[in-house]
């Protein structure tokens, strides 16, 4: 079987200049990530800000080349693939629908741009496809003539989804598609994405900082910490039986609407993760509530247990 996405030991470093005299530090944003995603599945990627999840999204959509390792989409290497071909295969939806749409173009032109760039459809057919897709995501034909500024956040995100789907790609990379939206609208967009997946047989890579959001859409969930996937498991397993201490802390931090439970003590301490200064051994050990002596020395590399990946030395 050909995987929709296959990522093989991908690394991505950034050079960061620090101050006037600084010699420059290197930030390991993605530090040895491997996974494969079968077609039709949804892989949710969760983690806190700075864990490298957005960098990973950019690597997989080809917006950024990896420092080392390789990304395969639909069995073919992303590096060196023609841009137009790549666009027919994989499309992104970004977090902020206020900055990802051209403010000076009307909605119809925004959504038809990917088709125009492919250059193989006459204008009439392009417009038909655009209007069909807009209708499918819940944007009326009169709204299609307006500028993005006239639309609400939820409507703009619908437009961004229509633009991503108008080429009928097989894979969509959603980078925090609902985190700029209100809760009532977030639920609308999540439901829409779930419907579209069934309808078009799509494969999603779904990135979010919110574990609860991911559960609703993902078949598998990967938890990232400081550039690495520290736990990966089928969604239900991960939410009901988290194995990695970091996953447990993330789950415990979700404030569900249960009065009386109070604010949880997640026990993570103050040592905020710094991707320019990755600790030796297990990279989570400075914040880990159950770390022991060996954690500061030995890196838990690629440990598999009961069908899931858990980068932790604890049995």
């Amino acid at each position, binding site marked *: 079987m050909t995987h929709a996405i296959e990522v093989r030991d991908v690394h991505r470093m950034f050079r960061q200049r620090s101050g006037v005299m600084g010699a420059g530090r290197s930030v390991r944003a993605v530090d040895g990530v491997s996974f494969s995603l079968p077609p039709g599945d949804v892989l949710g990627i969760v983690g*806190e*800000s700075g864990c490298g999840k957005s960098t990973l999204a950019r690597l997989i959509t080809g917006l950024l080349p990896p420092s080392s390792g390789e990304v395969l989409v639909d069995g073919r290497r992303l590096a060196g693939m023609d841009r137009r071909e790549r666009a027919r295969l994989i499309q992104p939806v970004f977090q902020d629908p206020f900055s990802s749409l051209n403010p000076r173009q009307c909605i119809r032109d925004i959504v038809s741009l990917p088709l125009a760039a492919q250059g193989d459809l006459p204008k009439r057919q392009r417009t038909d496809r655009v209007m069909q897709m807009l209708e499918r995501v819940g944007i009326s034909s009169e709204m299609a003539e307006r500028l993005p500024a006239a639309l*609400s*956040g*939820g*409507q703009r995100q619908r437009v961004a989804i229509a633009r991503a789907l108008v080429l009928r790609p097989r894979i969509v990379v959603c980078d925090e598609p609902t985190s700029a939206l*209100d*809760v*009532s*609208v*977030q*639920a*609308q967009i*999540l*439901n829409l994405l*779930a419907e579209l997946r069934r309808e078009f047989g799509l494969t999603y890579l779904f990135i979010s*900082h*919110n*574990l*609860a*959001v991911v*559960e*609703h859409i993902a*078949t598998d969930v990967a938890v990232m910490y400081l550039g690495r996937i520290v736990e990966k498991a089928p*969604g239900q397993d991960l*939410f*009901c039986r988290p194995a990695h201490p970091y996953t447990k*802390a*993330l*789950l*415990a*931090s*979700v*404030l*569900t*609407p*249960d*009065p*009386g*439970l*109070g*604010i*949880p*003590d*997640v026990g*993570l301490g*103050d040592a*905020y993760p710094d991707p320019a200064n990755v600790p030796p051994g297990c990279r989570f050990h400075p914040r880990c509530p159950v770390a022991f002596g060996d954690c500061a020395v030995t890196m838990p590399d690629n440990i598999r247990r009961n069908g899931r990946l858990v980068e932790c030395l604890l049995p």
Partner: protein
Amino acid sequence: MTAPVDEPVLSIANLRVAFGRRSEAVRGLSLTVARGETHCMVGESGCGKSVSALSVMNLLVRGATRSADHIRFQGQDLLGLSERDMARLRGDKIAMIFQEPMTSLNPAYTIGSQLAEVFERHRRSGRRRALDRAAGLLERVGITAPGMRLGQYPHQLSGGLRQRVMIAMALMCEPELLIADEPTTALDVTVQAQILRMLQKLQHELGLALLLITHDLGVVARMADRVSVMYAGQVVESGTVPEMFAAPAHPYTQGLLACIPVPGTARTGEPLGSIPGVVPRIPPGFIGCGFRDRCAFAMPECAEPVPLRDAGGDHAYLCRLQPGWQQAAA
């Protein structure tokens, strides 16, 4: 002048805020916050919660007009205060924390000098004493090595640390009332839990009246004693937290609760609850229920003035549906 014991620290009655003739952002808001109490205002963007907070501080943008029966702080009506007297209260007896700590801190000054300034100004203290107090407060909000942090600039701190600094700054003059506008929205979930925990502890220790603004019903459930649910400039439901979460009475509150994904409860293939449509903009003179266009239970009468219903105890809601309608509908 000290207020009588049973007088709430903050009492707002019938507050209205309009932006010209285009929109009325707050339409008759009333609420109270007592000493040691946390009152949460919860609602989606554009519901008027931030504007309400800013009108207590008299920090509204030019062009906005506020009116109210009263906005009383410790028995004193803030409506008649001069800008000068108001400036004396701000940062002293009434403190405020905003969502984005990076834009609230001045990037050109050290943490220490920004913390000290508040105290020097309101308490006419010297720098030395102010810095000592600042270091003490940084320690209380859970910052290690406070002496080193005082000499740092905002950009050298993580988001969570910056928000801790903002909280320390708000507490410099021992305020009676703290208004926190989405203090943890820009932070990661683990950091949010840490900050809220610390805030709750400090509030109990200091007996602060806390008006907490949030869009997150999870934060409300875990933090608040009382809650006011806002929609389109009005409080559509209010009560104590146990009352409201036990039996949410307004269709909007119910819809909002159904939208929240709770980990460990998702069933594959089942859609999440959602509320159709978008939050409307309400022009001045609007009559009837602001939620009627999105409400599954709307009827023609919803375009008429809406009655305030008593749901028992302190629990009240603004809706045409009679108390107990949830059982009848089920």
